[in-house]
């Protein structure tokens, strides 16, 4: 196996995107994504069984498309990598089953890696400037997760500082969009609706931000109470026969989410003396999040990195990139007996590494 500049194919199927990525060392060759998002739209959120069925159908064609785009053959690959968790278990299993068989058919080493750490690894593929040094704080926000990490070493030392104790931030966007009568997915809809709205019009609660919460949950998030507060506000206005100021509600809700995300992330940078913040996950598409993060990071003297959107959403390239780093760091392949683990902790960067020899 080439450990200098390994050619790796990565498979990602933890949620509703079937992602196949191919990288050579730190260079991106293909980032192919098939999404089943449209199939979930009428249910207002990702339906696990629908996502898993879609993965099975999209897997083969996506692998073929990625190989063609990268212009490589299976023979040339140095390894096959896959997300083994965290995520939706039925969805993860499709990718893990496919990856194991692909590794056996091509006689290539198999690496099972952590999805959240993969999001951090995506930064490596961003060609705009040098990737981050470590340690760095990483804020990962999507429809499936909201996590704050301290990354001391991408392949050896990742610590979970905090995460959501109820809804993911992306989920809150979907639910509030629904309250406002907007379609799924809610993120871009809320963004559009908030245009021209006053973010200070309504003071919605900032979850886990009161002094008493900050002792125990300094870096944790909660968006369930916020969603309920928006629903209450809208219901009260409806009962009173008032017209709902959708732009103000959307802008004020979005401000509450963004405020709490960025405040806690910058707090972590300050508290831990880490002057670097990396954003990842699909919610990074939110323009207001990027804006507020940019302002407050600058004010706090924290360097900010936001990979391009195609590398922020779930994708196979980040999985391949992380595996390439593991290979370059001398890590052995994973056991072919690994399971899918829907709650895989971030401390497990690689799953079931075989002992040498």
């Amino acid at each position: 196996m080439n450990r200098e500049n390994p050619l790796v194919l990565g498979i990602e199927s933890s949620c509703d995107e079937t992602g196949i990525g191919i990288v050579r060392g730190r260079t991106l060759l293909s980032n192919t994504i098939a999404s089943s998002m449209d199939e979930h739209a009428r249910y207002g959120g990702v339906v696990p069984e629908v996502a898993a069925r879609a993965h099975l159908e999209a897997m083969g064609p996506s692998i073929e498309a990625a190989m063609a785009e990268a212009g490589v053959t299976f023979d040339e690959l140095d390894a096959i990598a896959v997300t083994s968790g965290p995520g939706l278990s039925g969805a993860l299993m499709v990718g893990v089953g496919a990856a194991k068989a692909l590794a056996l058919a091509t006689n290539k080493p198999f690496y099972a890696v952590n999805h959240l750490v993969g999001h951090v690894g995506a930064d490596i593929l961003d060609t705009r400037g040098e990737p981050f040094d470590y340690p760095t704080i990483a804020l990962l926000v999507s429809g499936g997760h909201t996590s704050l990490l301290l990354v001391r070493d991408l392949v050896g030392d990742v610590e979970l500082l905090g995460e959501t104790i109820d809804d993911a931030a992306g989920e809150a966007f979907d639910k509030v969009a629904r309250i406002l009568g907007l379609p799924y997915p809610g993120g871009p809809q809320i963004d559009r609706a908030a245009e021209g709205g006053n973010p200070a019009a309504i003071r919605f609660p900032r979850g886990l931000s009161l002094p008493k919460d900050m002792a125990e949950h300094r870096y944790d998030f909660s968006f369930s109470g916020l969603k309920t507060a928006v629903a209450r506000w809208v219901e009260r206005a409806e009962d009173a026969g008032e017209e709902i100021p959708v732009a103000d509600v959307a802008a004020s809700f979005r401000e509450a989410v963004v405020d709490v995300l960025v405040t806690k992330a910058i707090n972590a940078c300050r508290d831990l003396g880490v002057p670097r913040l990396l954003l990842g996950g699909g919610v990074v598409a939110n323009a207001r999040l990027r804006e507020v993060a940019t302002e407050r990071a600058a004010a706090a003297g924290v360097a900010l990195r936001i990979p391009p959107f195609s590398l922020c959403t779930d994708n196979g390239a980040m999985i391949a990139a992380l595996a390439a780093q593991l290979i370059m760091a001398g890590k052995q392949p994973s056991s072919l007996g690994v399971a899918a683990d829907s709650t895989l902790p971030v401390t497990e960067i690689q799953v079931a590494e075989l002992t040498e020899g």
Partner: protein
Amino acid sequence: MYLAIDTSTGTGVALVSANGEIRASRVLTDTRRHVEVVGTFIQEVLAETGTTAAQISAVAAGMGPGPFTGLRIGIAAARAFGQGANIPVIPLVSHDALALEWYENGGTGELLVTTDARRRELYWSRYSGLDAAGIPVREAGPALARPEDLDIAETERLGTAGTAPHRVDAVGIPAGSLGILAQRVRAAGRPGAEDEALYLRPPDIAAQGPRKRVS
């Protein structure tokens, strides 16, 4: 050589030679550990027979019927193996392997096979025998039914004079027989089954109702 993979009930993996002999096989009836064992099983049957992926000429994929999550893992693995080794995948109805095994072991006449579909339902298929190519002739199914409804339907079908078919309520699919079936299907120039997972149930989804009040 044919590599056969089925996860429609438990997990079954087998290697069958070009002339239709089972060379190695692995079975696990546990219906929750498909993803853990599928790779190891493939690795083991290859190692046990000293076979390389390049020596496999086709992959037999059991397409079900099977409950959702497990079924997909074997199909995903079979397709990925075929893709990686650049060989065809032959999709097959998993129940056909049960029928082949039963007739090959001397069974004659009508056969009804069932497998567990969970939620107190069964998957079933009915066969009349093997054809000239040694391939089971499926007269009905695969289909989904509650056990009592299947009994009623069979009683009605047979009337007063008919003899009930022999019945096999299987807990696992014999992957070796699936491999033999693939070899016979290929030798006979048949296309195999539809390349589609046989869930026989729509996904579990509740369409969104109207928004509920919180206050």
